[in-house]
């Protein structure tokens, strides 16, 4: 596998309009990723799959990551694709694509037509993170029940109240158990009042 910069040039030549950046991982992991904009991720993926130098025919892992808006950076949901080549036994090429966090604009083109492996994992990303994949053959919820409306793996999701019997409460379970008047050790309730007063 060539160095990541060389791969970036090859990809840039192959798909001229694509805006590709390099994001590097932890110093020890040495798995830099290519951040591609939403419009050209399909073209770049198709290139890596068909090009004889790469032949990335095995899409191993598709993950959605929810980045909360920070002081300097605006929040986004990032979908990460790990591509491997079974034919040439080559290491991972990591493609990243970002979409805004708001539910209505959170759309990313699906890569299932390229690799059938992404079918279930993209459905899971839709179910738990709310990323809509355009072009996905069968975009339904896969893990939660169909009537469920929220996207529970987002960082700002608050689970429903269910803290009636908490013999060993700690920090946020303690908070919620006290709010819902659950049954808990009396000393824990006093501790929380004292901490609130301070």
């Amino acid at each position: 596998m060539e160095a990541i910069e060389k791969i970036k040039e090859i990809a840039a030549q192959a798909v001229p309009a694509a805006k590709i950046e390099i994001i590097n991982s932890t110093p020890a992991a040495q798995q830099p990723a290519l951040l591609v904009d939403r419009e050209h991720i399909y073209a770049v993926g198709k290139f890596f799959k068909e090009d004889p130098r790469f032949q990335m025919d095995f899409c191993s892992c598709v993950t959605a990551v929810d980045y909360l808006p920070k002081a300097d950076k605006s929040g986004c949901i990032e979908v990460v694709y790990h591509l491997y080549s079974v034919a040439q036994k080559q290491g991972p090429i990591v493609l990243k694509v970002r979409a805004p966090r708001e539910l209505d604009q959170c759309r990313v083109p699906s890569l299932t037509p390229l690799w059938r492996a992404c079918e279930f994992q993209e459905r899971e990303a839709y179910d738990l993170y709310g990323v809509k994949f355009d072009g996905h053959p069968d975009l339904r919820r896969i893990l939660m029940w169909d009537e469920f409306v929220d996207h529970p793996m987002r960082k700002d999701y608050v689970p429903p109240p269910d803290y009636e019997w908490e013999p060993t409460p700690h920090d946020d379970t303690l908070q919620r158990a006290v709010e819902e008047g659950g049954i808990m050790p009396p000393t824990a309730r006093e501790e929380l009042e004292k901490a609130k007063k301070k």
Partner: protein
Amino acid sequence: MIQPLTDAKPYTLTPGSNGVIETQTLEVSIGPQHPSTHGVFRMDCVLDGESVVALKPVMGYLHRNHEQLAERMAWLGSMPYTDRLDYFNSMTNNWAYALAVEKLAGIKVPDRAEYIRVIMAELTRLLNHSCVIGFMLQDLGAWGTPLLYAFRERERILDLYEAVSGSRMMCNYMRFGGVRVNLTDENLATAKDIATRFPRFLDEFEKLLTNNEVLLARTQRVGVLPKELAINAGISGPMARASGVDYDLRKVDKYGVYGRLEFRVPLGDIGDVYDRYYIRVLEMRESIKILQQALRDIPQGPHIAPEVKLRNFKIPPGDGYGRIEGPKGELGFYLVSDEGGKQPYRYHVRPPSFINLTILEDMCVGHKVADVVVILGSVDIVLGEVDR
């Protein structure tokens, strides 16, 4: 007109346009509670008589939110949770998570720990493949005899796990940088004894099954998986190798000390249920070879890298993906750590059995209900890992 069932359309027996009696398909949900779905997995089948017309897998009945819990815990805190992912192979799950974190944080693992990890992983592979064949025979209707023979051997391996790590199924044995408890000579002796005794069990198992005509008739040419579809659908593990895909991570990534051990990777060519059964038998024989080599030249030395801290263990910000060849396929962990470093910002498991189910419908359409159950058995799914 016959009174319809609750939701089915009324049966009409009027002759169809081409004079054939118009029959009506039967929607059956081989549901979350079924003797042979290996846990809470549901398949909505549309049957025309006995043969399957369409099949939609439905999952999520054991979605225990392992990934969200891991984001609220320290790095070490989610190591015992990895035991509950694929609750047959807790050692290989631990190894996959430890490998991913070591890759992320750049921790060097001493040699003895690597050999111990190989020994434990190969023992888990033996245990998993024999139990899978046992469960598949249970789906085929052999009243538990092969399954209980496999469980008899499994108990022997679980005794060794309990002696080493303290628990039969949930070992929580591997730490970042090595293993928690060193292998005493007595443990090595029991491992050698298992390695010598297992081939005899395998021969008896093969005599009972391999050329059993009913098994041959029920499994050959059933649930055929072509090679290109296997690669495109991300199928990994024995299921892919049964279709001829030459991709074994122990040979591709050469992680741990697999580079120094010599063993062969069996490949099938048709990719039906019988191939998957026999590839697992051959892989068990290869695992025994690996086990014997590892037990022969395990070095002395530390069993864990001393510099790794137990509490306040931090990882520099960034992301990384580590994967191993688990008994069911490629088990990977994609981890993202932010600047706080004490807790994973994103913790994603790439489970082999979840992705191996993608092509269940392609394999089952056209076969009988009895075959659907056998094909699911040969895919070897464990719901803890499918639903995470």
